[in-house]
């Protein structure tokens, strides 16, 4: 060892030195002429150049939008595939994308999209209506089961897609479908010239997999701001500017400004946060408990932690109200407990007994706010602030419990009419630290009311199994990512829904208020008028807060850390960290 070790060290220095002053391959950008239908970005014109670096925990599982089910893969796909229209994450409005404009026929079911003339795919092939028709064909083909096929149909009936001419496409929905444009905005248009062979021989779901991305990145042809340059599994993904992108700035400089977009693939969220805190990456989403210590490095590495405001994530407690029995005839929930859980006053009392301000202070370090309904303020377009609130009020909670026939013994423990001790087991998943802390605080709050709560921390898989298959539990604590169009919440709100967790998959609504929610949810789906939809969905939120099947807790604020060198940044309240990657630029020192 005495001889080999220093020489090894020396070698590494040598290697490190050589690498840092190695010559770079030329990275000059091509500059094909701008398309006729160019979209001019309304931003301060900047300079081209620079590399934007970020990191993501985990790995994309695919680059094929028909296969993608996770946010990581979806995020990468949206970098290189654009849609007919774009959902602006900052304004939450629908904007022109590959379609320059669109007309809605008086029947509110027929949409005619006029495509941008002169747009080309990243390989230079012209883009046309055939690509749009092909994309929908692929999505609806029963050989390729995928998520979009279900999102883009109404009661199992597909949209009709016709090509009018090379630059015009007509889409017709079988019924009036409220989130039509939003959902169309989520469909990345696929290149017919590249994927048709795989479509023909039935291997479309295997196209654009990680192996193709690694070996032939250029085959991932898109219209987005970037195109894939290289993919090293478990290391990084490098995107480069798409030379044929269809947006430019006011001076006629084609976007994106940045030359390269590098994403480090790290193993978990901690590693990702750490990479940002040590100045290695340009952007990172931060959880409330990390903000304070990371902010201390902001001047050393030149970044700022921006508060995005409330996140779209909800957290709640609910009681199992399923009156069914398992195969052996044993009820899922003990009958006397089912009586408590289905009593609205009991749920409201529990809600009044929770010190949400305390949760925000103790668990979220003051970086959050109490939550009273199914949407958080992050969902600007649909959030109803006028729902029923249950401020921390133990006296009110006790009054409600008394009204519902509960009483306290000399031991200060709560008992129901028949004298049963009020006690239940709250299940939650063990992976989420903040949620675990909230469960503990909840237990303390309930003890003050004389209610005994036993905590059970389960593996996420086990817990989901209980909620969706075996139903053998009393109470649960979980979160859901809300935000977006109300249509996305149907599986939660509708009594037939799979995630109607307190009593899922009901044949007929168990209560009048659940019947009313069902009615409202289908009404809001059948009109394009925002204010009408808003009225229906406001009522849904109001009922949810009145009946309180979910006892909402708090919502944490979301934070994003960003290096100060980037200009033109737009941070959306929900979704990706930076909404306008194509418009970012950085002043560079020229040698």
């Amino acid at each position: 060892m005495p001889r080999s070790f220093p020489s090894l060290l020396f070698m590494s220095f040598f290697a490190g030195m050589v690498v840092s002053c190695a010559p770079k391959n030329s990275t000059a950008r091509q500059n094909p002429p701008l398309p006729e239908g160019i979209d001019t970005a309304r931003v301060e014109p900047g300079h081209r150049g620079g590399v934007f670096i970020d990191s993501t925990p985990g790995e994309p599982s695919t680059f094929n939008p028909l296969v993608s089910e996770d946010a990581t893969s979806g995020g990468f796909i949206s970098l290189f595939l654009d849609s007919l229209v774009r959902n602006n994450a900052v304004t939450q409005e629908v904007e022109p994308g590959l379609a320059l404009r669109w007309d809605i026929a008086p029947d509110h079911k027929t949409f005619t999209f006029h495509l941008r003339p002169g747009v080309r795919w990243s390989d230079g092939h012209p883009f046309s209506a055939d690509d749009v028709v092909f994309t929908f064909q692929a999505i609806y083909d029963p050989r390729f089961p995928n998520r979009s096929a279900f999102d883009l149909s109404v009661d199992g009936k597909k949209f009709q897609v016709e090509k009018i001419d090379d630059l015009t496409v007509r889409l017709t929905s079988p019924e009036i479908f409220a989130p039509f444009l939003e959902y169309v905005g989520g469909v990345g248009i696929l290149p017919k010239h590249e994927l048709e062979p795989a479509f023909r021989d039935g291997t479309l779901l295997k196209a654009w997999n990680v192996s193709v991305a690694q070996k032939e990145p250029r085959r991932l042809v898109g219209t987005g701001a970037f195109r894939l340059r290289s993919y090293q599994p478990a290391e990084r993904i490098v995107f480069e500017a798409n030379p044929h992108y269809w947006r430019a700035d006011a001076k006629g400089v084609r976007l994106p400004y940045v030359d390269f977009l590098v994403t480090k693939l790290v193993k978990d969220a901690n590693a990702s946060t750490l990479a940002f805190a040590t100045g290695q990456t340009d952007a990172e989403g931060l959880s409330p408990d990390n903000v304070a210590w990371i902010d201390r490095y902001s001047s050393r590495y030149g970044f700022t932690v921006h508060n995005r405001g409330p996140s779209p994530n909800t957290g709640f407690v609910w009681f199992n109200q399923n009156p069914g029995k398992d195969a052996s005839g044993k009820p899922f929930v003990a009958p006397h407990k089912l009586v408590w859980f289905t009593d609205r006053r009991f749920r409201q009392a529990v809600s009044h007994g929770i010190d949400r301000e305390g949760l925000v202070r103790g668990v979220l370090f003051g970086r959050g706010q109490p939550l009273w309904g199914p949407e958080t303020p992050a969902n600007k377009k649909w959030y109803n602030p006028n729902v029923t609130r249950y401020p921390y009020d133990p006296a009110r909670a006790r009054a409600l419990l008394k009204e519902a026939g509960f009483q306290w013994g000399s031991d200060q423990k709560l008992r129901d009419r028949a004298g049963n001790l009020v006690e239940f087991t709250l299940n939650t998943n063990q992976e989420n630290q903040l949620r675990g802390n909230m469960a503990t605080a909840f237990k303390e709050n309930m003890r003050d009311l004389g209610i005994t709560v036993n905590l059970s921390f389960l593996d996420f898989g086990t817990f989901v199994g209980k909620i969706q298959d075996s139903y053998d539990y009393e109470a649960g604590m979980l979160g859901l990512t809300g935000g977006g169009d109300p249509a996305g919440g149907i599986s939660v709100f509708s009594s037939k829904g799979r995630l109607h967790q307190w009593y899922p998959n009901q044949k007929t609504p168990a209560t009048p208020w659940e019947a009313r929610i069902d009615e409202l949810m289908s009404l809001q789906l059948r009109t394009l008028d925002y204010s009408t939809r808003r009225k229906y969905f406001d009522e849904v939120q109001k009922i949810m807060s009145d009946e309180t099947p979910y006892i909402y807790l708090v919502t944490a604020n979301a934070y994003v850390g960003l290096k100060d060198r980037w200009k033109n940044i737009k941070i959306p309240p929900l979704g990706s960290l930076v909404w306008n990657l194509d418009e970012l630029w950085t002043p560079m020192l020229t040698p």
Partner: protein
Amino acid sequence: MTTFIFRRLAALIPMLLAVTLLVFALMSLAPGDFLTPVKAQRDINPTLIAELQKSFGLDRPWYEQYLRWLGNVLRLDFGYSWTYKVPVGQLIAQRAPATILLSLTSLLLAWALAIPLAVLAAARPGGWIDRLTSGAAYFALAIPEFFLALLAVWMAARTGWFPIGGLTSLDHDFLSPPYQILDIAHHLILPTLVLGLGGVAGMLRVLRANVLDVLRAEYVTAARAKGLTERVVLFRHVLRNALNPLLSTIGYAFAGLLSGSLLVENVMNYPGLGRLVYEAFIREDQFVVLGSVVVGCTLLIVGNLISDLALAWSDPRVRYGR
């Protein structure tokens, strides 16, 4: 000899059957399945979940799924990864080179350090080299690999001499080939040290004891009496005989080529098989798990076979009959 090889290879079949059956049964006992995360998303249609369940065969009892997998394996189809939609073989081949590279460099480091040190230590038992190496060996054996890996990462972060994890730098794509090789070498140093040092300690102790044994043999005295220099005696006559027991450990090293670095890879963010297999276990991506188990078992058996053959070649007393 050939029958011996055949017999050993034939023993693979029942073992693979038993091990894969066990893994499959354990996986089906574990709560949840591959589709659990999908089920927890609010905007996924139940019909799609049912369709996926059917296409993955998850709606069938576990023994039926196992038999179906077995049937496909007989046709040399190891299935495809549900996560990545890529054939399992292709996926393993994508990640294996990095792991093999690391295993080889660390094995090489272990042998290159352990052999000369052991001989030098045994040549003067109780001398300063001996005391120093055995002290260091005890120390190295006592430190778990993952802890050493954490120390290495911490050291890299503090000093900046080495990259923090990974196998290539951010600008790797833009370097010319010779610099790309240097870049990889630079990244390999720390993981190689971490994986190799534990091996050095173990081998050092075994080899030192063997060399001491052999040194007392009569033919060593004879060699010295012939007037051979001490160096020739030690490295030509003693070492060759003392190495035999170590040859039999090559088999395990061979098996460890693909699986041994799982922990270190995860701690050091190394882009090898370890992370892939770990994630596949967590996600219950059945065919990837089974595929990696099959590869691991096969390597173990083949590795042992190779070390047995190497032993027969190096030690004239060992012969395999029918």
